[in-house]
């Protein structure tokens, strides 16, 4: 099994993801430069956090046209697992792999702190080792994480169980005061209809070891590994 971490100019969580996959999870992983156009042999592609292209124009708007993104779209159409974290989520939205868009945070502040999110759907390849309603302690670090989607599309998301994470209190209560950025429906992460593409604002790679204060993110990587192993066993 092999992970690939895409590196755009301005990515800055690429090494954190690489490190966690290789050293904490113990799986094989490569960096993939954004100008590459070959994803052969990979089972899961990570679009990491950072400030691709300096966030010029809109977050993710230019990275979305990097050569590698054509391949990522193709890869996802063939059922490959794609996880976009923070800026990676923004790239997935711009690329149309996930619905909606990001606005600047409600309070116009860059938010860099631990928050709580609740697992809304534990039936995805990324969250299968959690149980529904489980609360994760996980950090966010973003200026544009204020997720927007129109009401009709939101009902579709809910109907298809595409809302994967919502901001909440320590005890799992969803209320405006626990929503750090003003996201519609307190959304912190969503998946596509098929469930093989996940976008999330919080950073699981920053909380995969207890020395960092939380290892709640680790189960996301382990869920991915389990899903891929099962698929490979079937093939």
């Amino acid at each position, binding site marked *: 099994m092999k992970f690939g971490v895409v590196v755009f100019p301005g990515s800055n969580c690429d090494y954190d993801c690489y490190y966690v996959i290789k050293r904490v999870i113990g799986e094989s992983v490569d960096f993939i430069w954004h100008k590459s156009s070959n994803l052969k042999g990979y089972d899961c592609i990570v679009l990491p956090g950072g400030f691709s292209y300096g966030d010029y*124009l809109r977050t993710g708007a230019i990275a979305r046209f990097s050569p590698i993104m054509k391949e990522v779209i193709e890869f996802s159409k063939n059922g490959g697992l794609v996880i976009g974290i923070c800026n990676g989520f923004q790239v997935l939205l711009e690329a149309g792999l996930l619905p909606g868009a990001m*606005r600047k945070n409600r309070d116009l502040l860059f938010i860099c702190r631990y928050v709580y999110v609740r697992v809304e759907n534990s039936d995805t390849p990324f969250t299968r080792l959690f149980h529904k309603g489980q609360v994760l302690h996980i950090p966010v670090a973003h200026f544009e994480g204020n997720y927007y989607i129109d009401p009709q599309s939101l009902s579709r998301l809910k109907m298809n169980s595409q809302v994967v994470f919502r901001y909440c209190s320590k005890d799992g209560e969803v209320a405006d005061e626990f929503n750090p950025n003003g996201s519609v429906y307190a959304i912190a992460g969503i998946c596509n209809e098929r469930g093989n593409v996940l976008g999330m604002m919080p950073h699981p790679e920053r909380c995969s070891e207890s020395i960092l204060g939380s290892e709640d993110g680790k189960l996301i990587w382990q869920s991915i590994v389990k899903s891929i192993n099962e698929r490979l066993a079937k093939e």
Partner: protein
Amino acid sequence: MFKVKIYISLKEGVADPQGITIKNALDSLGYSGVERVRYGKYLQVYLKNSDKKKLQKKIDDMCKKILVNPVIESYEYEIEEVK
């Protein structure tokens, strides 16, 4: 040559925290009667193109493909002939 002035703004109904903050600043400076502020972007694109009709199509393409995010933004533009 043509100079295209492209105005990009958040769609009606999309909350605009920057616009609200600017309005509050104007209020606190004592400018009365400011009802609303919407924050946007302004781009100048210089293009060599002789056919104005084709030019419009090109600008619409550019806007829809990359310059504007149609989920939350709308745009309008003006074309001006320059030397």
